[in-house]
């Protein structure tokens, strides 16, 4: 996608809050995603590793992002993610904020479809498995802000 088209499409996506979940210490996923999202235009607030639920929520209320991206690869993503999204959705100001999660979400490999549905039902707007290509995440970001013509704009 041409940069100015992307900027136009993502015009309303100005600030993204990027974070790990409480028990996950990995950060390369966060370093990479920060660069990827910044290249799409938005400013990124990167909370780093092992973010307690309360800190994620207080930062979400303070930063007022247009999107929260949770990235985790230690296998606790299903449990940690479900817990934190439930706590987050309990705040009125965060009820409609787009929140997505992705990574290696289960101890025994990819999580099941039922578990994915659980996470969606608990309040995530999208769940990305370990095998998701950067393009699928970009497409999701594109969809967050509908293009003027309503169609997806792909080169």
């Amino acid at each position, binding site marked *: 996608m041409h940069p100015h088209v992307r900027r136009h499409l993502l015009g309303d996506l100005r600030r993204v809050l990027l974070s790990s979940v*409480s*028990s*996950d*210490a990995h*950060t*390369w996923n*966060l*370093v*990479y995603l920060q*660069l*990827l999202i*910044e*290249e799409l235009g938005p400013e990124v607030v*990167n909370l*780093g*590793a*092992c*973010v307690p639920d309360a*800190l994620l929520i207080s930062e979400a209320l303070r930063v007022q992002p247009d999107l929260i991206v949770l990235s985790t690869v*230690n*296998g*606790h993503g299903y*449990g940690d993610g479900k817990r934190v999204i439930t706590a987050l959705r309990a705040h009125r100001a965060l009820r409609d904020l787009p929140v997505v999660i992705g990574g*290696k979400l289960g*101890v*025994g*490999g990819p999580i099941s479809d039922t578990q994915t549905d659980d996470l969606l039902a608990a309040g995530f707007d999208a769940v990305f498995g*370990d095998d998701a290509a*950067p393009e699928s995440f970009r497409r999701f970001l594109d969809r967050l802000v509908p293009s003027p013509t309503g169609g997806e704009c792909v080169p």
Partner: protein
Amino acid sequence: MTATVTPGIDGFLAEAAKRAALVVQPRMGFSDPNQMLRGLLAVTGANACTIATITLDSYTRVGDYAAVAEAMRTGMPLNGYPLVNLDPAVTRELVAAIAHTGTPVQVRHGSGLPLDIFQAMAGSGLAVTEGGPVSYCLPYSRVPLPLAVDDWARACELLANLADQGARPHLESFGGCMLGQLCPPSLLVAISVLEGLFFRQHGLRSISLSYAQQTDRRQDLEALRAMHRLAGDLLSDMDWHIVLYAYMGVYPRTRSGALDLLGDAAELAVHGGAARLIVKTPAEAFRIPTIEENVAALEYAAAVAEEVARGEPVTERLIDSGIHNEARTLVEAVLDLHPDVGQALCRAFATGVLDVPYCLHPDNAGRSRSYVDASGWLRWSRVGGMPLPRPAPESLRASGSASGDLLAALSYVERRYDRENESARKPSRD
């Protein structure tokens, strides 16, 4: 206390050295004590000279004992052994059940604030562990560095004092593994040696220094030589050895690529004079490995090491790209900041004298950067405030984007080993 105490590591390594055997060790931890025992027994029974591992779960690592308790109550599997929440009697039984094998057991945890864990170890007959005030704070926690330094100082003293009860305490610095990949060797060597000095200051007499396999074999050999030389100069009054970690970054996805990378780590351990190797498995790219996969990796690495040890020693010309000088400069610059090693480390990070590339921790300056050059060597592109030579202007490949460049560097090893196997240019060892 009459509990069984796991054997010390130094005598075990000396015995292995007599037989010219490389000691190999997995990462392994299960929430269920019975499965943990099966894992420990499988490791001790492997056809290799092994040290066993109890890896703790990541809730324990961050001190979230309520989450551990909840997981234990609901039966949700954890990604490791919940040492602190479990009744110490359970762990003492575990230790007793493998005592007859004479195999030392190391506790691996990743905690920036390890005192609770060290106390639980002391109550369970375990005295061999790893980490460090920098290496388990900056990459893996949000704990302010000065707090981690204090907690680690007290934890080291507690561990050292176990010697009075007949234990043989051993502490490994994880400093040679900072962020797993893309940290240039001179900084890995320096942090590992500095943590070794910190351990000594807090009473430990038996330590190991770690180094993680990076992107180029010759560069890694040079780094291991530098580590031997610095440790020989600065830690000569201690029992110390070097532990090599098989590549810790993005792992090859093909089975033969993963085995080749592990085989190269075993060869590097032998040629580089490491006494111990932490293995990885071909399952690593996808999920946490099973007991059987770990045992297979241990046996494979041990077999390669044996073959290498029987072969010719390295005869190729030694390269000196300056790793030893850089590492020594960093160590000396840090020690000049304060007579207390912990205080010196805090000041070093606060002033950017040490600066880990791509590390997101708030106490890391974050001004250094690294890259993999065209010949596969890991290089500085920016040194920030570190007292190191300014890198030549970057000669990076023409690139599309910063994220693309980073992804390419992160997956450099994976692509190289997977590609070599896909095109069958390199004979596979299995």
